[in-house]
C-alpha cells in the first residue's frame, strides 16, 4: 500500500499548514503510525491538543474523520454494529405469504442490508480515506476495551452471522486518554504511545501566534512566559494550551498589549478554574519580590 507520508519533516510541514504546530515527537509518531500501520494512543493532561491532533491529521490528508466518543456504558451496539431488527421484522412479515423457506429468509435478514454500522465498523468498511478517532478511551470499563482489540491489531471486525469483515484500506487510528485510569496492557501493547505534555515555551508562543491572529509578537511572548511560570507552581489544574489561547484572546479584546501585574490578576480566571489556584497564583505573583532567591531548582 502506498504510504501517506514522505518523511517526518514532511508530516511536520503539512501539519503546520493546517495550523497544528507539531514537535519532533508528534510528527515522528504520526509518520511511524503510517509506516507501521499501528494505532496511536495519545495520553496527557486535558487541553494539550490530543483530539486536535487527530482532527488536524484528517484535515491534512483530506480524509474523513470518524469519531467514537467513549463513555461509561458504551457497548458493542454503539461502537461496532447493530442489527436493524425492525427492518428484519418487516422483512419476515412481508415474506410470510410467499412460499419462501426459513433458510432463505435467515440468510436474507442477516445480510449487509440489515446491518447498522457504528463508528468502528464504518471506519473499517469505508472506501474513502478515513481517520478514526477513539476519544477518551479511558472512560470505558476495562471489559469494554476488549471490543477495540480486534480492530486495533488486525483491522477487522468479526460478526458471527456474517463472518469477518476486513478493512478495505487501513485507516489511521488515534486513541486519546486523559489517564483517569490505567489502560489495559493488551490495549497499550497494540498502540504506539505518545505523551502530549504542555509545550515548551517557544512552541507555545508559536501556537499563540498562529491561533490568535491579531496578537503582537511581544504580547505572545509575554503570555507564553507567564503561563510557563504558572505551570511551575503546584496547582490543582495547570492552564492548558486552549486556556492559554483563550487568555490571549481575552487580552486582545481588552486592548492590552503589555501585561501588567494587575491585568494578570484580573484575568486569571480565564486561565485557572479553581478558586484555590487563582488565590495561589495571585499570592505567588504579588509577593515574590520579598522572597527572592530561594535555592535554584534542585
Amino acid at each position, binding site marked *: 500500500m502506498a504510504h501517506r507520508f514522505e518523511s*517526518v519533516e514532511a508530516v511536520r510541514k503539512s501539519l503546520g499548514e493546517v495550523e497544528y504546530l507539531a514537535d*519532533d*515527537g508528534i510528527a*515522528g*509518531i504520526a*509518520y*511511524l503510525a503510517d*509506516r*507501521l*500501520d*499501528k494505532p*496511536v*494512543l495519545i*495520553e*496527557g493532561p486535558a487541553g494539550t491538543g490530543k483530539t486536535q491532533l487527530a482532527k488536524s491529521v484528517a484535515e491534512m490528508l483530506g480524509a474523513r474523520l470518524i469519531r467514537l466518543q467513549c463513555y*461509561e456504558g458504551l457497548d458493542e451496539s454503539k461502537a461496532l454494529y447493530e442489527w436493524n431488527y425492525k427492518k428484519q421484522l418487516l422483512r419476515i412479515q412481508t415474506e410470510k405469504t410467499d412460499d419462501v423457506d426459513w433458510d432463505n429468509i435467515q440468510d436474507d435478514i442477516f445480510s449487509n442490508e440489515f446491518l447498522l454500522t457504528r463508528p468502528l465498523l464504518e471506519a473499517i468498511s469505508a472506501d474513502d480515506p478515513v481517520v478514526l478517532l477513539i476519544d477518551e478511551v479511558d472512560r470505558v*470499563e476495562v471489559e469494554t476495551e476488549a471490543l477495540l482489540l480486534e480492530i486495533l*491489531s*488486525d483491522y477487522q471486525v468479526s460478526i458471527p452471522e456474517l463472518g469477518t469483515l476486513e478493512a478495505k484500506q487501513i485507516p489511521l487510528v488515534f486513541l486519546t486518554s486523559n*489517564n*483517569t*485510569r*490505567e489502560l489495559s*496492557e493488551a490495549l*497499550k*501493547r497494540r*498502540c*504506539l*504511545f*505518545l*505523551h502530549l505534555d504542555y509545550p515548551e*515555551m517557544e512552541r507555545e508562543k508559536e501556537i499563540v501566534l498562529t491561533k490568535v491572529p491579531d496578537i503582537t509578537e511581544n504580547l505572545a511572548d*509575554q503570555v507564553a*512566559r*507567564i503561563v*510557563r*511560570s504558572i505551570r*511551575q507552581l*503546584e496547582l*490543582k489544574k495547570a492552564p492548558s494550551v486552549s486556556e492559554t489561547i483563550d487568555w490571549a484572546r481575552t487580552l486582545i479584546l481588552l486592548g492590552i498589549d503589555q*501585561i*501588567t*501585574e494587575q491585568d*494578570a490578576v484580573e484575568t486569571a480566571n480565564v486561565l485557572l478554574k*479553581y*478558586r*484555590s489556584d487563582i488565590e*495561589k497564583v495571585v499570592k505567588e*505573583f*504579588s509577593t*515574590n*519580590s520579598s522572597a*527572592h*532567591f530561594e*535555592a*535554584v*531548582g*534542585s
Partner: protein
Amino acid sequence: MTDTTGVATDPGADSPLFNLIEGFVVELRTAGLPVSLVENIDAAQAVRHIPIEDRAAFKYALAATLVKNNAHWKTFETLFEVYFSLRGNEYALDPDGDDPFGEGDFEDGENPDGPPGQGGEGGGEGLSPEELAELLYQALMKGDQALMRALAKQAVKRYAGMEPGRPVGGTYYLYRTLRNLDLDGMLERLMDQSREDAGDDMSSLDERLQKDEYEHRLEELRKEIEAEIRRRLVADRGAEAMAKTLRKPLPEDVDFMHASRDEMANLRRAIYPLTRKLAVRLARKRRHGRKGPLDFRNTVRHSLSYGGVPAEPKFRYPRPSKPEIIVIADISGSVAAFARFTLHLVYAISSQFSKVRAFVFIDGLDEVTRFFEGVDDIAEAVHRVNTEADVVWVDGHSDYGHAFEVFWENFGKEVGPKSTVLVLGDARNNYHASQAWIMKEIQHRARKLFWLNPEPKAYWNTGDSIVGEYGAHCDGVFEVRNLRQLEGFVDNLV
C-alpha cells in the same frame, strides 16, 4: 502490523542495529520497565523507517514503541542517553564544530590534569576561572545554547576532576563541578543586571518572569553538565557498566524512608494523578460491584408490560455503608514522609468514607482533623500538620505507648463498630512501655484495625521495633514502603 515474522525474515535481522535494540531492551527490562516481546519487535520495525542519525526522531520512535507509561519516560531517557551516548555523530565526545576552545579530547584527560582550576594542559588554555565564569555569565544572559554546551564541557573537564577507573558515581562529579561554578551566585548576578537594565520601572511580574527564564537556562546548563559527565563516564567504563550504576527505582517503587529530595519531589507529583485514578476506580467499583436486594415494587410495576409475569427482576441500588476512618500516624523524623503521603492519599479519597479523623503523634498526640476541614488544598493541610500540630510531650522521641494512652483516654469512646483504625509507624518505641493492651481494646471495639509499617519486613522486631507486639492485636500488619504498596492497600480498604 501483526506480521510477527517480519523481523526474523528480514535480511537486516542480524544487523548491528538489531542487536543494539535487543541490548537496549534488555537494559530497559533490567531497569524494571515492562517491555513485551511484541513491543520489542515493533521497535525493531520502527527503527527501519527512522535513520539512527536523526537522533531525536530515533529516540521518539523507540519511546513510542517501548514505553507505554509516562512515569517511565525519565528512566527511559536516561538509559537511552547512556546506551546510545557514543553512537551517533553529533554526540561524539569531541565534535569539531561547536568547540571554541579547540580542546583536546578525552584521551588528554587520562593524564590527570593538575588540581582543578589551574587551567592544566587539558585545554581551554589561557582561560582563567574568572574568564570562564564571565563567558558563562554572557552565555546565560543571551541564552546562547551552543556556547553553554561548550562551556559545560569545559567546566566538567576542569572542575570535575574525573579520573579513569575511579569508582565514584556521576553525582559526585556533578557536585564538584557545580560547586565550582556557583550557579546561585550567577543567578543573583543575572537578576541584579536585569534589574539595573530596567531601572525603576521593573514590576515584580517582570522580575518574576525574568527569574523564571534564567532558572530555566540554568537548569539547561545543569542538564548539559550532567550529560557531559555521563558521556565521559560511558567512554571510561562502557555503556553496560554505566547503565548498571544508573538503575534507579521507578517513582512508584521509591522507598518512602530513603527517598532523596528529588525523588520526594517526584513522589509528590505522582500522588495527585494516583489519587484521582484511585477515586475514579473506587467510585466505579461502588456502582458496579454488586446488586442490591430485590426491589419488589419496581419488579411488579415492570411485570405489567409482560402481562403480569415478573420476567424482569429489578434490584435496589446498592448502598454499601461507607466506613469511618481513623488514622493515627507517627510523624517523627524517620517516618514523617510516609505519614504525609498516607494522610494525603486518605484525604484525597475521603469521599469514599463517611468520616475521616486524623491523629498524629511523636510522644504526645494531637488531633489534626481540623486542618483538613473545608480545605481545598490537601498538600497545604498536610504541611500545616507537620508544622503546627502539638505532638511533643517530653523529648520529641517516638513514644507509641504514651501516645496510645492519650488517644485511648480522650478519644477511645469514639471508636465504634463502624470505624476502621489505621496506625502508621515503624513501631520503634525507644524502649518505652508498649501499652499494647490499648491495641487490644481498640481492636475489640473497632470494625478493623490495621497497622501500616514503612520498614522492610526484614527489619521488623529488630532493635527497638516492637511491631510484633502491637501486631498481635491487629487485623493486619502491612509493609507499605512505596506508593505501589500504599495504593494497593487503600484499594483493598474500601
